[in-house]
């Protein structure tokens, strides 16, 4: 045995921090080195774009803030209070933004990453591990905030001719704010994980994040349609300036920077030192409490989710002589593997919040826009009273068909997610299907049903509701139901074929299920199909109407032409992709 022990060295905190950072850098470098050339070029281009953005924001802020200080503008309003509140607003936004955005990253880094046990069992001080994790967690968001905040504050300094000390102190204060925000965020993580399992928290966070980012992405469109008044906008801006209050410690730092730069040394230094001291105190306190909580383990109670036991219902037994319900009879006619797959996918989609967010966002999207379309149509109708004769009739018919369009649109967003991701969502569990005696056509049929049936139900439901609310005719509703059923059939076939072609089972994050190229191609093909399909379904009825023929004739013609296109698109892409279904999942 080796008994001559190795010399025990005193391990310093900062040396360990440097070591751990070096490890992170090495991992980053190796990732970059092993990336494909296309990705490397992408990184370089991204870097250049970021630098250009930095420069642009800086130039814009400099110009805008210099303009605010111009004497010609000063005669209309006093810009000083606004200029004084700029650093406060930026620092407060950075702090609040970092507390929330670091939460998810810290949750991942402290509880869900697999390296924590390895790092804590290594001979490095625990505090070094925490410091590295905290900095690692805030770094991406901190960089993003710096990207926007730093050029504005530097622009402010240059436009006002502040001394060099201002430009040195700005990043120092940013760093202090970021570290204290990360510290608080880590405590928040520990507290929440004490109550809820970490994985569940991550799922809920991903769900909320997806909904939030979706709403943000649509905010421009929504605000355009909501017609905010000038007073509402002014009130919102006013509420922002309320952050500049003497009770806000971040205001001490913001005002301190300006006071110091404008020669009020004592006041400025006091404000800055006070806020720096407070930030350091928060960081130190959070660090030591978080360490203790983590080490004592009371925060590590549950990593996974544990669903409470449900009372198990005995399997329904059909009594001899008793007639089974028609639905049960119908489900028995479906092949068992197809039935099993549909039930399994329904359970998995319903229970996994990451999937739910991807399903709910298109529905919200559909609902919001259908309300807007609906309102827009009503305005259009009321404004079209003066349009005479034939055109008025065609327009009103077009608006009748708009109901069908809305229903199709709502279902459309849902089917594209369900069909395109149908195969990829199996993930690493695909081996279960691959090693079972499941015929490829049954697998395709199951995946088709999973995408088609909910879309059809939702599309029809919308159509019924809109027809009832707008008192549409039964004839148009029946035509609409046909359009929704047949058009969706083609769209599902098309998207499912792309889903097979781009199937990816090696994802960890649900957002990476689909390869970018396939999603892009699928979106282009779907859009082209949508235009062709709409033209085929609605063209004949409008044409017949224009020629003065009976509406029913045009609708039947539309259903025949559009239906044929829909069915061809449902069958041909799947027929083409069929040989590949047998091979997917094989490397």
């Amino acid at each position, binding site marked *: *045995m*080796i008994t001559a022990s190795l010399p025990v060295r005193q391990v310093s905190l900062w040396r360990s921090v440097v070591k751990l950072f070096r490890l992170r850098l090495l991992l980053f470098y190796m990732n970059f080195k092993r990336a494909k050339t296309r990705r490397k070029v992408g990184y370089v281009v991204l870097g250049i774009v970021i630098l250009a953005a930095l420069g642009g924001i800086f130039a814009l802020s400099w110009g805008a803030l210099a303009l605010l200080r111009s004497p010609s503008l000063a005669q209309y309003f006093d810009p000083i209070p606004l200029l004084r509140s700029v650093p406060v607003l930026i620092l407060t936004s950075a702090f609040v933004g970092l507390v929330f955005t670091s939460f998810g990253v810290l949750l991942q880094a402290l509880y869900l990453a697999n390296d924590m046990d390895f790092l804590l069992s290594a001979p490095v001080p625990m505090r070094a591990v925490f410091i590295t994790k905290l900095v690692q967690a805030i770094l991406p968001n901190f960089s993003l905030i710096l990207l926007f905040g730093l050029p504005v504050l530097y622009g402010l300094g240059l436009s006002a001719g502040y001394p060099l000390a201002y430009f040195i102190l700005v990043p120092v204060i940013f760093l202090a704010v970021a570290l204290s925000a990360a510290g608080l965020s880590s405590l928040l993580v520990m507290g929440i994980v004490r109550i809820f399992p970490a*994985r569940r928290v991550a799922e809920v966070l991903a769900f909320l994040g997806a909904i939030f980012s979706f709403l943000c992405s649509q905010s421009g469109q929504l605000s355009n349609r909501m017609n905010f008044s000038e007073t509402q906008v002014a009130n919102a801006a006013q509420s922002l300036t309320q952050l500049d209050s003497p009770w806000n410690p971040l205001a001490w730092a913001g005002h301190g920077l300006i006071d110091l730069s404008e020669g009020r040394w004592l006041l400025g230094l006091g404000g800055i030192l006070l806020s720096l001291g407070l930030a350091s105190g928060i960081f130190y306190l959070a660090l030591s409490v978080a360490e203790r909580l983590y080490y004592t383990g009371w925060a590590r109670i549950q990593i*996974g*989710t*544990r*669903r409470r*036991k*449900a009372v*198990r219902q005995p*399997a329904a037994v059909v009594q001899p002589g008793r007639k089974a319900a028609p639905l049960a009879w119908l489900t028995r006619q479906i*092949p*068992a*593997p197809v*039935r*099993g*797959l549909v*039930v*399994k996918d329904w*359970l*998995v989609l319903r*229970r*996994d919040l990451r999937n739910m967010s991807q399903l709910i966002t298109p529905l919200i999207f559909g609902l919001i826009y259908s309300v807007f379309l609906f309102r827009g149509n009503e305005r259009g109708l009321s404004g079209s009273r003066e349009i005479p004769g034939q055109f008025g009739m065609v327009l009103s018919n077009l608006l009748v068909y708009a109901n069908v369009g809305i229903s199709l649109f709502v279902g459309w967003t849902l089917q594209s997610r369900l069909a395109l991701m149908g195969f990829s969502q199996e*993930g*690493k*569990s695909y*081996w*279960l*299907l*691959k*090693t*079972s*005696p*499941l*015929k490829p056509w049954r697998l395709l049929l199951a995946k088709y049903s999973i995408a088609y049936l909910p879309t059809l139900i939702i599309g029809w439901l919308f159509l019924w509701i809109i027809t009832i609310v707008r008192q549409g005719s039964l004839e148009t509703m029946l035509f609409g139901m046909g359009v929704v059923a047949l058009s969706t059939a083609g769209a599902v076939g098309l998207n499912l074929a792309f889903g097979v072609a781009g199937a990816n089972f090696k994802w960890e994050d649900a957002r990476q299920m689909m390869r970018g190229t396939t999603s892009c191609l699928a979106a282009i093909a779907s859009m082209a199909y949508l235009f062709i399909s709409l033209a085929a379904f609605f063209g004949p009825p409008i044409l017949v109407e224009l020629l003065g023929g009976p509406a029913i004739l045009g609708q039947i013609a539309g259903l025949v032409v559009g239906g044929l296109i829909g069915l061809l698109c449902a069958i041909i892409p799947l027929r083409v992709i069929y040989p590949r279904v*047998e*091979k997917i*999942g*094989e*490397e």
Partner: protein
Amino acid sequence: MEYQSIPLIEAQHLVKRYGDKVAVNDVSFTVYSGEIFGFLGPNGAGKTTTIRMIVGLLQPTSGGVRVAGFDVQSQPIQAKTATGYAPDEPNLYAKLSARELLRFVGELYDLDRQQVNRRIEELLRLFDLSEAGDDLIDSYSHGMQQKTALAAALLHDPRILVLDEPTVGLDPKSARLIKDILRQMAARGSAIFLSTHILEIAERMCDRIGIIHQGRLVAVGTMEELRALGKGQASLEDIFLQITGGTEYAEITEVLK
């Protein structure tokens, strides 16, 4: 054993290449009915690749596998109906409970529903999962997930059972249970193909052992036949190390003493 004339797994000149790298190189063997065949080899030798080709998860570059008389590539449905498989990493649907998963597997194999329900309860009881049967799989430990995967492999009472490291992560009671199940299945005429790193399991349980090294099957036979190959080495560990070139490690450990 009276079954030992029926070949249930026949690997013929199996080759699997990944670019220039040959993961499995001209591997041929036969596993007969009623036999437990142990598949040994160092890490990265090609065990899992071979197993994945047997169960139809990987397409061989050349050569082929017949399972229960059916070609895995051209008659996959028939071959897969006869096979049960449990991988080394379970990777099950995390958002299903064990009961739901087993019911789903029953439907994939198109089994009678009432029979499946009965079998599910038997298997859950056998693997000590009855209590946790309605909990979601993502709340299970690795061992519990491994047992669920084994239950799924056994659900349709397969004639051929292919197991990749079946005892990894299992407690001694469960490991013993697996051994007993495998012996019973072999006695009933099933063919068991298992890969393991635990040489004691292979030595005690397997009727024949195959050793794969750098993609080549370097030895196949009963313990006696392997002993004859191993130039007088008595234990499987010594034979294994001699065949796969691990004897130099003994010298290193001597230095460390």
